[in-house]
């Protein structure tokens, strides 16, 4: 009987543990279920938003469905992608453009969507290549990079921004300062420029000189100012000398004034672009002092404030976007980098060192209230950019926020030293932020932007209208155009190449024009030619011309690289390369005549007879 109290205690403890286990885990499961349900998009259903994530050193743009986090596709831009037949072959004009403007890779950072009335209209997306000072424009009807330009007089094209509210220019910040007149022998301090690019012509209209390293950009909602964070006002060349000053700056450039000055020929033209020097034009540039080495700058949806993140300082600097005066500098946490917004007057700032997103109330911070911090949430790990849906527009949605983290550490199964990058989706619809899900990507997204799928839907096209020079079915041909050149006009449709064979001779240059004559969406055919470094991917209706050397004598089977039909494997053809001294008569081929068994008369194609 003496043991009864002991047994009672034991039973009580066991019961308590059981209750906690049961209901505790149940509650946890419930929270998980709620989060899972918010990001679950069943097979066949579509995501509400499309997120464009810069591909970083992948040189591309990743397109991700939100809230599911599913990687929908990659848009190759600065790097050849054989999978899309993009810029692969050495004679491909896009490849040549890439080579001529800096190289076959890029470092994409900031995807920016075109705006109309301060909201995204779904026409274009621009993205920078920091490494080679390039700017690319992606057409969102076909999701393809249609223009790539090199920005003159600038190195390290980092922050870019679309001038609100109607995309008047694309602002491009030059981060790596250069000799003022482009001459390395000039002993004057280095300087840099902010470039203003016309969104349609993609011409650089003018540039404004700024001393220091010009970092992240945004613009006022009325289009009056572009804001750029500038670090290293010291103009130091090494790290130690770049962090000497207590304050660096946000550079506010008066865009209409710059326009007027450029139009009046006030700039110094270098490499075809007028460069305006603020030293000669008072009011063109206003440097607003902020704690040293700031990073992001973001304008609030109502256009009232530009918010600069302190990076090395635990503060954000709130600047009146009209008067350019500092109105507050609240502390938010360690390593503030970027800020985004909801539709209820809240700002969300990424804290790189704290690995957190901090939610704070703008009006309270400006008003000097002490309770401006609303919430904090941990992310995994070392967050860089963050974006809330519509945070860059005048109408934020206030539902999801994407945290783009630099490291994933323990978030995924270890797969060698190079772990995937980690993006985390956070629900910001309530007072408290809720972590919903994470998804990995290849290296290495910096920034993101979102557009509603409903905006894209009427814009996106999946079948090309054949151009005037497209090869038409029934009019395919193989014609010898010269002693050492052959032109092949080919069509592709399930499940055949026409012609399905052609002969050339060693030393020939083959100009292949190929049209996919399919009319149904998603019916993409490839044209891969072994040992010729050649793979073309052709969407329906698309025509591509490629020139290549015939190569060594032999039989080369061209085949379809994009799965297309039940006879996909059978979709192939032969390029027969005859030896240089072959005496065999090469048969020219033409669809209509070929049916009748005739040979088209053309330039003599026998080696001996030429």
């Amino acid at each position: 009987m003496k043991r009864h109290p002991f047994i009672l205690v034991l039973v009580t403890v066991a019961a308590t543990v059981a209750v906690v286990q049961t209901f505790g885990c149940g509650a946890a499961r419930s929270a998980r279920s709620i989060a899972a349900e918010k990001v679950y998009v069943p097979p066949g259903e579509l995501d509400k938003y499309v997120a464009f994530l810069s591909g970083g050193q992948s040189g591309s743009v990743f397109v991700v469905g939100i809230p599911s986090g599913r990687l929908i596709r990659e848009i190759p831009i600065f790097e050849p992608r054989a999978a899309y037949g993009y810029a692969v072959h050495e004679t491909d004009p896009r490849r040549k453009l890439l080579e001529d403007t800096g190289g076959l890779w890029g470092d994409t950072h900031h995807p920016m969507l075109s705006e109309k009335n301060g909201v995204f209209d779904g026409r274009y997306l621009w993205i920078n290549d920091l490494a080679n000072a390039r700017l690319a424009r992606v057409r969102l009807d076909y999701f393809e990079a249609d223009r790539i330009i090199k920005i003159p007089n600038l190195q390290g094209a980092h922050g870019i921004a679309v001038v609100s509210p109607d995309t008047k220019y694309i602002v491009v910040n030059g981060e790596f300062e250069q000799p003022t007149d482009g001459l390395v022998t000039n002993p004057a301090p280095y300087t840099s420029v902010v470039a203003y690019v016309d969104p349609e012509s993609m011409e650089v209209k003018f540039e404004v000189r700024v001393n220091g390293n010009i970092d992240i950009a945004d613009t006022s909602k009325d289009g009056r100012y572009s804001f750029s964070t500038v670090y290293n006002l010291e103009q130091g060349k090494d790290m130690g000398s770049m962090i000497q000053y207590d304050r660096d700056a946000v550079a506010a450039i008066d865009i209409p004034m710059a326009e007027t000055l450029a139009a009046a020929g006030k700039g110094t033209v270098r490499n075809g672009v007028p460069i305006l020097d603020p030293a000669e034009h008072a009011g063109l540039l206003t440097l607003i002092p902020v704690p040293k080495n700031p990073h992001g700058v973001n304008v609030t949806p109502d256009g009232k404030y530009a918010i600069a993140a302190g990076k090395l300082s635990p503060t954000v600097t709130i600047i009146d976007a009209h008067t350019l005066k500092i109105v507050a500098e609240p502390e938010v946490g360690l390593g503030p980098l970027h800020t985004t917004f909801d539709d209820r007057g809240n700002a969300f700032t990424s804290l790189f060192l704290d690995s957190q997103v901090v939610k704070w109330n703008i009006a309270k911070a400006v008003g000097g209230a002490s309770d401006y911090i609303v919430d904090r949430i941990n992310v995994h790990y070392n967050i860089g950019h963050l974006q809330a849906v519509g945070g860059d527009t005048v109408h934020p949605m206030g539902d999801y926020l994407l945290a783009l983290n630099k490291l994933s550490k323990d978030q995924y199964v270890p797969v060698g030293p190079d772990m995937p990058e980690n993006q985390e989706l956070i629900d910001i619809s309530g007072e408290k932020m809720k972590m919903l899900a994470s998804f990995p990507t290849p290296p290495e997204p910096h920034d993101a932007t979102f557009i509603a799928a409903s905006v894209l839907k009427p814009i996106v096209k999946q079948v090309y209208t054949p151009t005037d020079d497209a090869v038409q079915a029934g009019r395919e041909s193989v014609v010898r155009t010269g002693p050492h050149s052959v032109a092949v006009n080919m069509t592709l449709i399930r499940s055949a190449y026409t012609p399905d064979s052609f002969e050339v001779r060693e030393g020939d240059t083959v100009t292949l024009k190929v049209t996919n004559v399919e009319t149904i969406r998603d019916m993409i055919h490839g044209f891969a030619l072994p040992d010729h470094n050649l793979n073309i991917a052709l969407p329906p209706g698309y025509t591509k011309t490629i020139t290549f050397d015939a190569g060594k004598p032999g039989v080369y089977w061209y085949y379809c690289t994009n799965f297309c039909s039940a006879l996909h494997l059978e979709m192939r053809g032969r390029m027969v390369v005859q030896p240089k001294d072959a005496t065999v008569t090469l048969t020219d081929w033409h669809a209509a005549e070929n049916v009748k068994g005739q040979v088209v008369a053309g330039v003599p194609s026998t080696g001996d007879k030429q």
Partner: protein
Amino acid sequence: MKTRALYLTAAALTAAALAVPLWGFAMSAPQYPDETLHLQIARTGIGGDVHEVETLQQYIGVRFPTDLPELKWATRGIATLVALLLLAAFTPSTPFGRAYRVLCAAAVFLLLFASAVAMQQRLYRVGHERDRNAPIRAVHDFTPPLVGPVKVGNFTVWSFPHLGAVMLLTAFGLSVLGLRGTRDFIQRSDGRLSDLVRKGAA
């Protein structure tokens, strides 16, 4: 006047049927979500997603019917009906006129019936006169019904009357409606044809 309006409408509908699709086919398959393929048969031939259907049918050896003599006959028949119906509009309600209208309704019916038979025959041939060397052998011969579905491989093919056929059917209905009173007329004459003819002659 009412009868005349009926026949004029019937004639107009019949004429209009020549300008619109007569019969339709809808083909759906898992690979074509939200984009069912459509074919329409009109006086001028087959329209719609012809390119895609031609591309697909090679796999199962179906020969796309490019030459359709039935359509020429149907066009002539419909044109004749237009003339017959117009005439019926201006036929007096005499026994002879009434007899003509009965014949006219019968002619419309006959054309519809003959067209249906010809089309069913053609549908049978499409599903049976196939290239036996087609890549996919697993699909058995098939006969799409005039109205309704048939399963062809991964496709469900629905056949249905299109606007033109509906117009022709309506014209037939109107031509039958134009006969109202004819029965009474016959009964009044005790059903004797001789009376009918005699009264007509009078």
